[in-house]
Each structure stands twice: as structure tokens, then as C-alpha cells.
């Protein structure tokens, strides 16, 4: 199943190494899809590895070295993901921030962290940095639109321009597996807490998931909303690199439901919000109460008792409802983080989608040292414990 078996000699110990391995063994296979300009734009493993390599080179050229942190403020987009990998490629750390979080909550966080290297998606994100009085050493943007006006723009770098550099080949060897891959921050009252994920931990968790869910190359995964979360890194990114399946990005938040149906993912790693929202989405669109159609639907969705109800209900309602929601191919519906409300769990249960819960073993701690310098002993400890 997982390409772990067909790796020669030593197994990769970091995410970038897995990436390089996938590129070596399955270069032409599809690694990423992004719904953009009306169609699903495809990137192969080879292309992904190459782009990450170039990015790494670009970052290096601007002084990004092992141990540095790249703060990423972007919606789920391939570029954001590749940038994170590029940072790790150089032995650095990626720190993800969700731009959909209210700026008010994020501002103090960013202000306190004062990251030196920042990737911001576009104008809004850049403005958010400004409000946090951030003056990063290096500012990279994905979408230049409207930026020409803002003053921060002067020294900012275009993601596309970074790609011009020549790829660095020897990836991620600048550091043992205990190196931190991702770090997440949150503010609790006045204190700032951090959560560090080492390559080793990610790979271990990922490997566990891959084996438990028997994930293979043929999986289609949808990277939806909760991008900037540890769970996403654990249960989507790591397995993606290990099992070598396809990671898909919707066109944008407004179209994600349509996109999910188009794509028909086999692996869905969602949070409680994801499933709750979908449940609501379905409920508000079901036939109006009182109509014969609604009675039929309710009858079919009632926990099937008789053989008759099970089969007829399946063919008339459940089968198509599952398809409309984009779950008709889903093998591994995963829930990361908090548990689902019972009715939501039940709703998907009836559709034959039994959402499996993976508790996000989050270790939030108050940083031992100033956050913009790296310490690895903590994560090291973690890996020994496990």
C-alpha cells in the first residue's frame, strides 16, 4: 500500500525527503490538483518537487536558513503548502495562520511573534500584517493585485519571481528527524501558547493513519477549510507525502461544496465544523417539510429497519444524497479534533459515511524561549516519549 515498502535503504526521516522520494519513484503521477480558471489544474510529483526546490533556493537567497521560521498567512492554496515544504526543505519551520480567523484575534499574536519571514496571500493579508505593526525581513505575496498601492509592497517579493531560482537538490538533510516541521500559535488570555510538530512525530502519526486506513496512491483527498491546523498537517499532509495520493484544492470557499461533488474525494479529513456545516447544508436544502418528497426522504433517512426500507431507501434517497454531498466515493471520512454532535454523527452514519475520529493530540505549551528562535529539545522529548 504505502510507498514505504518500495523505498530503498533508509526510510526518509522528514517531509521533504518523502517528497523527493515520491518525485523519484512516481514523478509523472498526479500529486496536486487545484480548481482554478474553471478546471482542475494538475501538478505531478516531479513538478511539485521541482517547485519546492526552486522556492527553497529563493528563500535561501534571501537569507532563510535552517532553523528559521516562515509564517504563512493564506487560505488553502497549493502555493502555501509548497512554501511550507520549501521552508522545511531548508531545515526550517513553517508556521501557519488562518486568514479566516478574525484579525482582532490574530493581530496581537502576530505582533508578539514578529516573524522575520512571512508569506501573505494578498492585499488583505498584507494589510493585516500592517495592522499588527509587522516589519518582516522578507515578505512574499501570492497575489500582487492591489498591492502596488501599499507601501510594504516596495521590498515585497513575488512568489512567482522566487521560482526563477535554480532548485537546491539536497533537501532537508540539514537536520535530524527531531527538527520541528510545523509550529502553531494561539493566544490564551494574555499568554501565547505554541504547539510544535517534529518531522518524526508527523511521519509517525501519518504512517499510523496510512496503515490504519490502508491509504494508497489512488486516494483523492480534498484540502478544505481548516488548513492552518495541526490536525491538517498530521492527518492530511504527512499521509499525502507517505502514501503518495492526490491532494486537491477547491476553487474557493464559495464553491467548495460544488467542487467536492465534482471531485468525489475518497479521503476527507475534516474538523467538527466541516461536518456540522455539511449537515446543515443538507438540512436546509432538503424538500420542504410536509411535502411528499420530504416524507419520502425522512422515511429513507430514518435508521433503516426492514430489508425493504434499507434497499429502497438506499436507491431512492440515500445513494443520491450521498452523491450530492460529494461523499459517494469517500472511503475514509476522518474527523480531526473535537467529536461530532450525535445527530451529525447519526446523519452521516445513515448515509453509510461513518466518520472516524482521530483525536488531535494537541500539546499546547508556553514557549520556552523567544518564539522567533527555534528549540528542538521539547519536540525531541516528545518523540522519545512516544
Amino acid at each position, binding site marked *: 500500500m504505502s510507498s514505504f515498502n518500495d523505498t530503498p535503504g533508509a526510510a526518509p526521516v522528514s517531509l521533504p525527503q518523502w517528497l523527493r522520494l515520491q518525485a523519484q519513484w512516481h514523478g509523472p503521477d498526479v500529486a496536486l490538483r487545484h480548481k482554478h480558471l474553471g*478546471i*482542475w489544474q494538475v501538478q505531478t510529483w516531479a513538478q511539485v518537487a521541482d517547485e519546492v526546490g526552486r522556492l527553497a533556493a529563493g528563500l535561501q537567497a534571501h537569507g532563510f536558513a535552517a532553523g528559521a521560521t516562515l509564517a504563512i498567512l493564506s487560505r488553502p492554496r497549493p502555493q502555501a503548502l509548497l512554501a511550507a515544504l520549501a521552508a522545511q526543505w531548508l531545515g526550517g519551520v513553517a508556521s501557519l495562520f488562518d486568514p479566516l480567523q478574525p484579525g482582532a484575534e490574530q493581530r496581537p499574536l502576530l505582533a508578539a511573534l514578529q516573524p522575520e519571514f512571512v508569506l501573505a496571500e494578498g492585499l488583505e493579508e498584507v494589510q493585516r500584517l500592517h495592522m499588527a505593526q509587522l516589519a518582516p525581513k522578507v515578505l512574499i505575496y501570492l497575489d500582487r493585485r492591489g498591492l502596488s498601492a501599499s507601501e510594504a509592497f516596495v521590498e515585497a517579493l513575488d512568489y512567482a519571481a522566487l521560482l526563477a531560482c535554480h532548485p537546491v537538490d539536497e533537501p532537508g538533510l540539514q537536520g535530524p528527524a527531531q527538527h520541528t516541521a510545523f509550529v502553531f500559535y494561539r493566544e490564551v488570555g494574555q499568554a501565547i501558547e505554541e504547539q510544535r510538530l517534529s518531522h518524526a512525530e508527523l511521519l509517525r502519526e501519518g504512517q499510523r493513519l496510512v496503515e490504519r486506513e490502508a491509504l494508497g496512491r489512488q486516494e483523492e483527498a480534498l484540502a478544505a477549510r481548516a488548513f492552518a491546523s495541526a490536525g491538517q498537517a498530521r492527518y492530511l499532509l504527512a499521509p499525502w507525502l507517505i502514501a503518495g495520493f492526490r491532494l486537491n484544492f477547491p476553487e474557493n470557499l464559495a464553491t467548495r461544496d460544488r467542487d467536492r461533488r465534482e471531485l468525489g474525494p475518497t479521503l476527507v479529513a475534516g474538523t467538527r465544523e466541516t461536518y456540522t456545516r455539511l449537515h446543515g447544508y443538507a438540512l436546509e436544502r432538503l424538500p420542504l417539510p410536509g411535502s411528499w418528497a420530504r416524507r419520502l426522504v425522512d422515511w429513507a433517512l430514518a435508521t433503516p429497519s426492514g430489508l425493504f426500507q434499507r434497499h429502497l431507501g438506499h436507491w431512492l434517497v440515500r*445513494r443520491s444524497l450521498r*452523491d450530492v454531498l460529494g461523499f*459517494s466515493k469517500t472511503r475514509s471520512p476522518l474527523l480531526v479534533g473535537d467529536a461530532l454532535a450525535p445527530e451529525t454523527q447519526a446523519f452521516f452514519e445513515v448515509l453509510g459515511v461513518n466518520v472516524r475520529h482521530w483525536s488531535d493530540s494537541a500539546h499546547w505549551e508556553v514557549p520556552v524561549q523567544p518564539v522567533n528562535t527555534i528549540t528542538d529539545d521539547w519536540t525531541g522529548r516528545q518523540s522519545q516519549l512516544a
Partner: protein
Amino acid sequence: MFYREAGQFSTRYAQDRRVFALRQDRHGLAALLLVAFVVVPWLGNDYWFSAILIPFLVLSLAGLGLNLLTGYAGQLSLGSAAFMAVGAFATYNFEVRVAGLPLLLSIVLGGLSAALVAVLFGLPSLRIKGFYLLVSTLAAQFFVTWALTRFSWFSNHSASGVISAPPLEVLGLNLDSPAGRYLLTLTIVVVLFWLGKNLVRSELGRNWMAVRDMDAAAAVIGIELAKTKLLAFAISGFYLGIAGALWAFAYLGTVEPHGFDLNRSFQILFIIIIGGLGSLLGNFLGAAFIVLFPVLLSNLVALLPGGLVDAGQVENLQKIIFGALIILFLIKEPEGLARLWQRFRQRARLWPLRY
């Protein structure tokens, strides 16, 4: 509820442009064609071929011809039958006057002649719109039938201007049998509908609809109204011409100019109103209705106890119901039967959700 769409997505624009984007639809169409080309000729009897299927196909084609002009390009026409007549008589003349000209080729040439005539009578559309255009198309209607009866040359000097079908032979195989004529018609209709589908989805098709929906805006964004309208007339004429040829030779066998009178034009207009303006499927639905409805009605009347409705009244009854239906459709479903189908399909794709 029969649609499973998950996993059907396009990674290239070509896939996205496909006429039938969904696998289920493609399979359905394939099955339909299989039935039409293999099962039907094998099972069908002569009555069905000659009295139902062939006229149905030909009228669908004629409907498409008018629909391109009226439903897509928004140019109202009451002269459809005239262009059919031109097609029929031109084909006939190519057959009798040019020795050894293959049948299909002379049919195409017939279509082209009809296209020419259509362009001629379409010229006024460059200056006039709406009802005013009716005059031009009616002029075509009356002038053509007059000319064809008046000058016996067109009917090769046959008495009373009746022309009769040449032997229907394509690539050496004889198609004079009902089944043969059915297959000939079916093939031509399928090809022309495929072409029509491409047309309406192409730049030209969009320009037509632009002119239909708001010609002032169309001009402002750089669409050449004259070219667009005239092409609509030409292509519509081409389709109607070929339909006329098939009507004459594959369906009736012999025909005179008055077989293509104003009522025929109305009939075709009704086809697209009932079937659906600006829809390809609609032409089939409308034609099926027009062909089957009288049959059904007369059968129904036959069922009634004798003398309740005498045969003479059936025709009047037909007229009344037809007229009433037209009004009903214009009020209730201006986009015709096709719209009903589309709506059902939309629901089916989203079932059990509402939107």
C-alpha cells in the same frame, strides 16, 4: 436520482466543452442511437416508418432549421415552407439535369440553393425587425410557391408541377424500401443535429443569442449584426432545404409546390413553440407532438361511440386543440416541452436536495 456525478471532473477545457459532460448522458445517447439505428429498423414495420418515424425525423430537422433562425438568432419567420420547397425542387433538378450526381451531393446542393434564397429574403432583416420582417418571409412564402408553379421548368415540365422522387441510392445500395428511407433520413438528421449542436455552442451561436437578447448591446461589443443575421438565414435555409428534400423524396415520394404552403410554415413554427425556442431537443419533442397528436386524436375519436363526433369534425377539433395548446404553452411554459425536461433533469441531478 440516477445521476452519480462525483468524480466526473475536467482537467482540460476540451473535456469541459463536451456536449454531454456527464458519463450517464453519454451512455444514454449511445444507447438511444443504437436503438434508432439497429433495433428500430429491425423491429419496425412499414406503417411506422412511412407514417410516423420519417415525418417525425424530417419535421424535427425542419424545426431545427427554423429554431436556429427564430429560437437562437431571434428573427421571426413565416417562410420556412418556402425554403423547404426550394430545397426539394433544387435537389430534384440537380438529380434530373446532372447525370450521375450522387444523391447525397444533390441533397446538399439543394440545401445550398435554399440557403441562397434564404439569404436573399433575409437581406431586409438588416434594416427591419420584428413584425416587419414577417413581410419579407411571407413574401418568400408566396413568391416561391408562385414561381415554382408558374414556371414548369422547375418541375421539369411535368403536368401540374408535381415532382416525384428519383431512385434513392447511396453508394450503390438501394434505399427505396421504407426501412431504407428511414435510415437515410435518420443518418442525415443525426449528422445535421450534431453540426447544429456545435454551431449553437460556437462563437456564432453565442453571437446569435446576443443579437436575439439585445442587438444594441451586441453591436457595441463588436458583433457584426449584418453578418450574424445573414448567416442565421443562410444556415437556417440550408437545414430547411435539406428537410424539404427529405420531405419530398424520403417521406412523400411525390410533391407539388402547394405541399409547401403557408400552413406547413405554421406547422413548423408550432413545432418550435411547443418544443421550445432555442433548444435542440425541443425540435424532436415538438415534432413528435405534431406527428403523434393527430394520430392519437383520430384513434380517440374512433374509440368514442359512433356518430358522436363525425370524421369531418375531427379536423376542426384538431385545429381548436392545437390553437388552444399554442396559447397554453405561451402562457404556462414559453420555453416549451424542452424546458419541462430540463427542469426535471435539474431536479434529478440535485435530488434529494432542492438547490
